[in-house]
């Protein structure tokens, strides 16, 4: 049963990913990205990381995907039929994609044959969300990265307000 759900979510993530790069229409591509991100959130649920799954949906679908769609809709013409999937950076993109793929192949071959089921993962602690929260605010663990990220987001927010502010020159 878990395998069936796993395959469903994996298909969602992969099909969404393929659609993102093959769709000529940018809004449809962004919507396919939502599908892909949702599939990944489902995989998190299967890994019993409910908190991560909810944050994935909240941040990536609720905020980032909507922001992307918003930006596309405001900057492009309304229904732009065909648009080339390539731009001037296609060469670099090709190089990085090939390098990444080679890296993945290397890792998979190295780990082959995959010992499915032989490695039993330790049980997920019931209070993993609480442990995560404590680790983020623990003085000896991740409080500095956490605070730096917070300050970065805050300054980005202030910057956005400054840019969006109407100029009163009169």
């Amino acid at each position, binding site marked *: 049963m878990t395998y069936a759900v796993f395959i469903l979510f994996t298909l969602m993530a992969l099909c969404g990913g393929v659609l993102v790069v093959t769709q000529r229409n940018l809004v449809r591509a962004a919507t396919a990205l939502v599908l892909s991100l949702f599939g990944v959130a489902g995989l998190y649920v299967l890994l019993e990381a409910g908190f991560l799954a909810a944050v994935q949906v909240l941040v990536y*679908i609720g905020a980032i995907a909507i922001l992307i*769609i918003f930006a596309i*809709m405001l900057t492009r013409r309304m229904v732009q039929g065909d648009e080339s999937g390539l731009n001037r950076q296609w060469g670099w993109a090709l190089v990085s994609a090939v390098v990444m793929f080679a890296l993945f192949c290397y890792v998979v071959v190295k780990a082959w044959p995959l010992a499915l089921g032989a490695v039993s993962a330790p049980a997920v602690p019931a209070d993993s969300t609480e442990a995560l929260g404590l680790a983020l605010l623990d003085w000896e663990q991740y409080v500095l990265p956490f605070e730096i990220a917070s300050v970065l987001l805050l300054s980005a927010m202030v910057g956005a307000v400054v840019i969006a502010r109407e100029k009163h020159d009169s």
Partner: protein
Amino acid sequence: MNGFDISNLFLSIGQVWTEWLLQLGLSAGWVSFVNKLAGAVLVTAFAVGTVVFTIVGERKLIGRIQDRLGPNRVGPFGLLQTVPDVLKLLTKEIITPANADKVLYSIAPMLAVASVILIWGVVPFANGVMGVDLDIGALYFVAVSSFGTLAILLAGWSSNNKYALVSAFRVVAQLISYEVPLVLSLLVPVLLAGTMSMNGIVQAQAQGWFVILAPISMLIFFISSTAEVGRSPFDLLEADSEIVAGYNIEYSGMRFAMFFLGEWIHAFTICGLTATLFFGGWRGPFVDQVPALGVIYFLVKMFAIYFVHIWIRTTMPRLRIDHLLDFNWKFLVPLSLVNLIVMSLAARLTGMPRADAALGELLPYWGVLLGVNVVLAAVTLYVLGVVGSRIRRRQEAAREPEPAVTGP
């Protein structure tokens, strides 16, 4: 099986049902699968089924408040009015505009309804009687709500109609803005209960409902979730007495109705959430002895809040778009930020009371939190008064002097 315990009716039914499935020869894994499926169907059926009654109830109630009779032709007292309405909607032609994005155009209404029904998965009807007791229930609620925003954006864009698109932008601007105070005020019950589980939040209210401990958070939550539904006084985007329609202008038939189905479900869903988070959910007299009573308490509370919601809907005038956004960004967001800081400090200073604390021990805890809220409300009203009168004076100074009346 140790007898059919009538006092815990719903869990007993579940137990009998599970044992019956096991006797049929299903393996434990399949029984769990069937149970989860049945739970999903039941929760969805509750949400959609309740709409049938709330539509008639709300129309009757609005009619009474506006000194009319309301629907009174179909069935006794017009109670069956929804049936012909639904039949009409189901039989209407579903039109897809030319050059619309067909896939997204048909997905959007489904997504709009699904995002609201998904919330019901974590709302506890009684102790343990709920879809699933997630330990991140409150976060889950915020996460699935974001699908609603996506649905509206997609509906507006895929219709291939510039008015629909502009309206979708306006709606999304409102929804995203009011999400901020909604989440910030939702954090206060989570903070006081020390858990994000919805059932845990209800259980934590044994030491006093959070509406007593955090009334300001309750008001912010209720106001901003009303704005999330897009109901009066926040309904200027869909003002059906002024403009044709918004993002759903191209939709017809049942697809059109799906958006309204979503809105109607959302309307009583936020009331159920307010009841759960602030009014003790299934808590009430004798609920520890007879857990099944919790369902009744929860529904009574939910519909009592729903009554207030309709009351506000029928009596408040519409806000203007700049007032709407100003009210959010210049009032609700700062207030909810200050409220969150003050409440966390107060809760930290008083400390959580023990689970078996006597009334005498609880009174100082209640007093401190309630007192903090009253002080905060007084300061807020004072600041509002000062700022308001300053703005008014500036406006009056800027206004051109009226022409002197010259006699004939």
